[in-house]
């Protein structure tokens, strides 16, 4: 599963860890996160993330 980086603050979403503080379980692919999820650091929306090459 791919990691995604927030283009606003640089936070990297790692599917292995998920974002449990905001209800995203470890092992959740970026694509499967609800659309209203926002960057846990800066609040950017999901469409402001890009895949880490």
């Amino acid at each position, binding site marked *: 599963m791919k990691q995604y980086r927030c283009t*606003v603050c640089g936070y990297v979403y790692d599917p292995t860890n998920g974002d449990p503080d905001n209800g995203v379980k470890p092992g959740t692919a970026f694509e499967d996160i609800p659309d209203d999820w926002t960057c846990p650091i800066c609040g950017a929306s999901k469409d402001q993330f890009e895949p880490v090459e």
Partner: protein
Amino acid sequence: MQVYEIKKDIYWVGAVDWLVRDFHGYSTYKGTTYNAFLMFDEKTVLFDTVKHNLCSDLVHRIRTLTDPEKIDYIVVNHVEMDHSGSLPEIVDLVKPEKIICSKMGHKNLLAHFHKPDWPYHVVENGETISVGKRSITFIETRMLHWPDSMFSYIPEEKLLISSDAFGQHLGTSERFDDEVDQSELMYQAKKYYANILYLYSPQVRKLLQSVAEAGIEIDMIAPDHGVIWRKDPGKIIKAYEDWSHHRGTKKALVIYDTMWHSTEMMAKAVADGLESTGVSVKLLDLSVNHRSEIVTDVIDAKGICLGCPTLNNGLLPAMAGFLMYLRGLRPAKKFGFAFGSYGWSGEAVKHMNKAMEDWKFDLVHEGIRVKYVPTHDDLKKCKEVGQLMGQKIIESLENQE
């Protein structure tokens, strides 16, 4: 020590830093201020603190108005040390009922001061609390310029306490916009935007739009650095609109470094070409101009020419460092051109072009490389590219209007 009543029962109690000249790499030749505000109502509220080394100034000013223990709430609009550095001492002194911060403010305060037992009160974006006759609405402004940044707005006073936004590193005994030289004020405000907020221009645009749509009335903006905008808060809002929309002006920069004056000769020829079209030009040698001042000029320039000779198959360190700094600030919507002399390999132009392509600059030319020392013809070509860029700048501004 002087305190200043900025609105009825709201006082400036901050500190002037007359000594600071280097703010994590940003040149602050005029010093700065760390603004903190004390509001008296049924609850007494302190907004922000100051850099640690000036804590006694803050305490002194608070004591001229009240016993610090009478302060009920401390609002932390921003966790960076120049505003929160005095917090541990102030919390010990004040014993506040609440330390008000955003969710990210809470996380970041814990990560700075490691005090899980402080009486944190986390506010949501848009939440309002009453402090008596008046109230405070908190507006999260994440990444303007840290994740914890927020504004405190007092609607009854039309007062926006704006944390670092709209600030200036300008150390003065004056507290208000109408008391200082206007060109100095706007230069320092622009320098602040360029060095601290430039990369967050999309967030600035969004914030300005949401504030306008919400119809929030503001007749005073009190930032955490520099003077308070009381006479003309619209002036700085308008400037932020221009800067955040990357609205260029009829201005170009030739930024260069040189080893044996060859690239300098090319730089002068490029500048000559630009000047001949009527565009305002600045020749900025990286060895004498501070990077934080160059980026202040970058912000409203429409054309950027970069010149650097090749050293050891790469760039001279001053240009490499400058490009790294500028890259982080994410410049946009400009014309670009790279040039430089070389001896045998000549990679510098390629590196500068690559940087400008990453920023999606419109390159007016593929770049000019000159072996060792430019000939008259080489310089003529440089001048022609300068002219070409000048014409493109003028055309694009006509279309912009």
